[in-house]
């Protein structure tokens, strides 16, 4: 029976897949500005995707855009699911792994699921606009995107099919330190795939029902009589130890598990045994260590409408922030706050709280990348108003009470007759369907802006002059035409990546030097290997002037190779 069902489902998927990539009859619509009107991969952005749905979309993108997309796996999650990674770049225009690249991940925190939709939308948008938009077309020639829509697929499935998962993945943890693992979690007593609130009628309770909207519980004024007491999350005492829901599934925090500024659990709640305790994070680490071309990263979270930047500890931890880096991070971050309406640029430790072992700090300190973490969705977005943020009214007027689970009477083994209800897991921190695409586009555009600002190196002013002694003097200028430097301060401090190498080919190179002032002949000679000049860093918009003294040769090539800045070359006539 099951097999037949599976075949049915498979054939339906196949049908959808084939119809999905074929495009629509162009006589039925015309293009709105900035969106792909007739995408090869049909996708709608007013719903949430299951792991199977994400897998399906990733596969469709890869098969519809073979010149742009490679679908791979970072490794397996704790429960054995593949962690998908989309590499998106114009493959014909150069090896994607050698271009400056931008990393996007979503869903590191289990219930913060819409990061996956933001990531997927970005992937889809880049692919579908490549043929429709000159900017995107050039961007994918110059740059690469590595996009991992969900780096926590186990908990995403739990969210979709069971209820609200812990913050983490599902690796068991003995939260109450009694020797039993995950033995007393929340319980979905009414079987609606939601873990809701429990309330009980009690004349001594501190809550009454709001007369304007009976769904809402409000706390009584001192001296006023209550009707209800609130009993916490839906659940029973599964292990009979006198506590409710004290040891649910998992319990560590995937975003306190990174190998930089790490601290143990009693300092940083959510930390596990040591950095990279989780298989999901191990998989990402191993990929990133092999992809040093990544210059920037975005890790999507929810909620609060914030573009988060480091440091995560007062004064920073071991990582380095230079004034120049700060200026770049702020300039990009402020642009994000402009692009994503209702969001603001926030420094983690100062404006939020201290975080040890966060992903962002590892990207910045350990990998030398420029990184942001967007906290998606905030209450402003409901009425585009910071003053009126009434969830009940929004749900009533715009969602027609779709996100509220009406209070329902149940018998609880300890509490007796209780009522279970409240906002569903789909509201509060997640976008309602109709707002998902808007915010996805704004966040995608911010990622695209980040990627655009990664270094782009060009070689200009390549000249040859004969010296009096019959030698050739070759000069050239290397320019970084974008905002982000090839090496951040952390990168320089820890020597994470090699310097930028500038090669001169043609003739025998006798000497090589960087020129500080050509008029006054102020130079710094590189005594070893002058045919491969080493440039520590090329800052945003910086010009580096080089000079070689060469014996022989007639045609000269100057090539620059930078791990994070990509490659460029120029040749004399």
């Amino acid at each position, binding site marked *: 029976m099951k097999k037949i069902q599976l075949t049915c489902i498979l054939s339906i998927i196949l049908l959808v897949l084939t119809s999905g990539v074929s495009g629509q009859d162009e006589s039925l619509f015309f293009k709105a500005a900035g969106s792909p009107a007739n995408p090869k991969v049909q996708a709608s952005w007013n719903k949430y995707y299951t792991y199977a749905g994400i897998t399906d979309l990733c596969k469709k993108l890869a098969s519809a855009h073979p010149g742009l997309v490679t679908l791979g796996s970072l490794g397996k999650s704790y429960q054995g699911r593949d962690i998908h990674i989309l590499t998106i770049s114009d493959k014909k225009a150069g090896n994607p792994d050698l271009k400056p690249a931008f990393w996007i991940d979503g869903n590191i925190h289990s219930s913060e699921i819409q990061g996956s939709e933001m990531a997927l939308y970005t992937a889809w948008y880049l692919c579908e606009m490549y043929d429709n938009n000159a900017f995107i077309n050039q961007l994918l020639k110059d740059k690469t995107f590595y996009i991992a829509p969900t780096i926590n697929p186990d908990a995403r499935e739990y969210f979709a099919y069971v209820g609200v998962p812990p913050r983490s993945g599902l690796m068991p943890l003995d939260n*109450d330190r009694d020797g039993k693992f995950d033995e007393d979690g929340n319980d979905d007593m009414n079987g609606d795939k939601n873990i809701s609130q429990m309330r009980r009628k009690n004349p001594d309770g501190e809550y009454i029902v709001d007369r304007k909207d009976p769904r809402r519980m409000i706390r009584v004024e001192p001296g006023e009589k209550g009707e209800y007491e609130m009993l916490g999350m839906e659940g029973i005492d599964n292990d009979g130890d006198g506590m409710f829901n004290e040891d649910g599934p998992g319990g560590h925090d995937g975003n306190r598990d990174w190998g930089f500024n790490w601290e143990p659990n009693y300092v940083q709640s959510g930390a596990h045994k040591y950095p990279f305790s989780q298989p999901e994070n191990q998989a990402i680490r191993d990929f990133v260590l092999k992809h040093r071309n990544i210059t920037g990263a975005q890790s999507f979270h929810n909620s609060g409408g914030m573009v988060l930047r480091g440091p995560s500890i007062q004064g920073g931890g071991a990582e380095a922030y230079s004034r120049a880096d700060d200026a770049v991070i702020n300039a990009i971050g402020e642009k994000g706050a402009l692009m994503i309406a209702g969001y603001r640029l926030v420094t983690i430790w100062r404006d939020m709280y201290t975080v040890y072992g966060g992903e962002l700090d590892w990207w910045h300190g350990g990998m030398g990348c420029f990184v942001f973490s967007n906290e998606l969705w905030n209450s402003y977005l409901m009425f585009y108003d910071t003053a009126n943020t009434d969830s009940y009214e929004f749900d009533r007027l715009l969602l027609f009470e779709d996100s509220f689970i009406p209070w329902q009477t149940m018998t609880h083994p300890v509490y007796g007759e209780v009522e279970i209800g409240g906002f569903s897991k789909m509201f509060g921190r997640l976008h309602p369907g109709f707002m998902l695409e808007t915010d996805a586009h704004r966040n995608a555009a911010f990622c695209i802006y980040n990627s655009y600002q990664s270094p782009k190196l060009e070689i200009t002013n390549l000249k040859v002059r004969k010296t009096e002694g019959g030698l050739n003097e070759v000069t050239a200028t290397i320019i970084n035409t974008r905002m982000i430097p090839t090496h951040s301060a952390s990168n320089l401090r*820890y020597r994470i990546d090699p310097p930028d190498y500038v090669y001169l080919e043609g003739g025998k190179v006798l000497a090589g030097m960087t020129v500080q002032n050509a008029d006054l002949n102020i130079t710094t000679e590189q005594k070893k290997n002058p045919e491969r000049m080493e440039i520590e860093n090329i800052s945003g918009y910086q010009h580096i002037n080089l000079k070689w003294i060469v014996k022989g040769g007639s045609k000269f090539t100057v090539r620059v190779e930078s791990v994070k800045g990509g490659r460029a070359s120029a040749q004399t006539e």
Partner: protein
Amino acid sequence: MKISLKILFLTFAGVVWSVCCTAQDRYSDYRTMMQKINTLSGDYPALCTSRSLAKTAGGKEVIVITIGTGDKENKPGIAIFGGIEGSHILGRELALGFASSILKESESSEIKALLGKVTFYVFPDVSPDAAEQFFAGLKYERIFNSAQTDDDRDFLNEEDPFEDLNSDGLITLIRVSDPAGTYSESDEDKRVMVPADLSKGQTGSFFVYSEGIDNDKDQKFNEDGPGGVSFNRNLTYNYEEFGINAGLYPVSEVETKAVLDFLFDHFNIYVTFAFGPQDNLGQPMRATERSGSAQTSAQTQMPAQGQFPPTGQMPVQGQMRMTGQQRKITSILNSDEVINKLVSDKYHEITGIKGAPASRTPPGNFMEWSYFHYGRYSFSTPAWWFPAERDKNAEVAFLKYADENKMDDVFVPWTEIKHPDFPDKKTEAGGIKPFATINPPAEKLGELVSNNYKFIVAIAAMHPELEFLDVNVENKGDNIYRLSLKVHNKGIFATCSEAGEVNMWTRIMRISLETSGSQKFLSGQKTQRIQRLEGDQSAEFSWLINGKGSIKITAGAVNTGMITTSVELK
């Protein structure tokens, strides 16, 4: 072919083994160590098992030997480590020596009783790649494994190793006569080179480098040889990001991860003993008073005995409002200090060793990790040291000690060599032999093994141990009974170190009652927590129960062992 090779190997190993066995007159190389381990588990199959936790980059196994009886995983556990730092070969010998001594003594009544109460986990060597350098043709003090690393972060791997310029099989020093040099011969001992002290009117006449050539012409000598990452720099406490031999991130190495996974999985382990450069037995760790430190706050956050935290959350989360900085524990806590002092006193008393070695706590070391991040009682000692005085040159002190103790094979006299980097300058090789300052002559091994064995056995006897006291049933009439009792820790060690109390990776004891028939609790809960008990401390509990019949009471956690008793309400 394969078989004959194996036989050959076994014969060879057997020869080495019998030589070592008759008199502990040499250090055990990897092969000998493995053979000894196999022999132990072969000779004492009922008490001793060994298993490999990981294979290092150098292809060597990291072994744990488990010694105990009965339900080994549910008794207080004691972990003993050698090879914490690869150049400290003595550690391997002492850890292995402990295993073999306790097994030899396992029929004695003292050890039989001890093995009934606790389980030993012996890790003879957690840095086997590094240790092999002691036995290699070219000897130098090596602390790192065989993973490929770029130690000087110049994007070339292992491009500037040592060279044995005087062909004596040892890497010592070279000195180059040069008026621009900054070193001169020490006034106290001409053999020792010291930086010239301008404030005393001295000028140098030598440059001093490690023995070798500057292969990559970067003006640095031997800064990037083979290897590697050091186990004793790769741990999370005070980890130095991108530090030398620290690894690319904490716990990056297979052997580090495997050992830590084993430890974290063994909640019964309550104490670790490490033989390595760090010391808190010669000189115990000292508590420092800090305002707003975790030391005071951790205590105030703890709920009353038997009670759960009010919100039903972990004590850790009760401290959420404090900043992380305030929650960090960076010096020993008061009650742990008392135990450290006691154990240190016992160390001096039992081994007869005097004074203390120079204190060294490099970032990412094991001794501090085990206490501050693993939350266990942690003891560490080099087990052998020479007396050093503050502000005195350590090399001079060592040579003096060596002369007094007739250790005549510790110095390579300065002799002239040809050096390609200094064709026109007088260059000499010489200096203290590698390993000599950290590892005693092999003839001392027997005595050291025996003393350190006795020490660990004596401390092991102080393990936490629970008992019920004053179990009392009062018949209150009307089928109502009051049951009361004390849970007493009759050990000297607390049930868990104070630093471990707030750590997720230690267990919290429970006391639970199994009722019979239709008994009901009128007061008191079926399951309660027992907060940490110091040595000789008790916790009192009482319940009011309606209904006759027997009640089974269970208390403890894996790190204390579980105790049970039964009472009859009648």
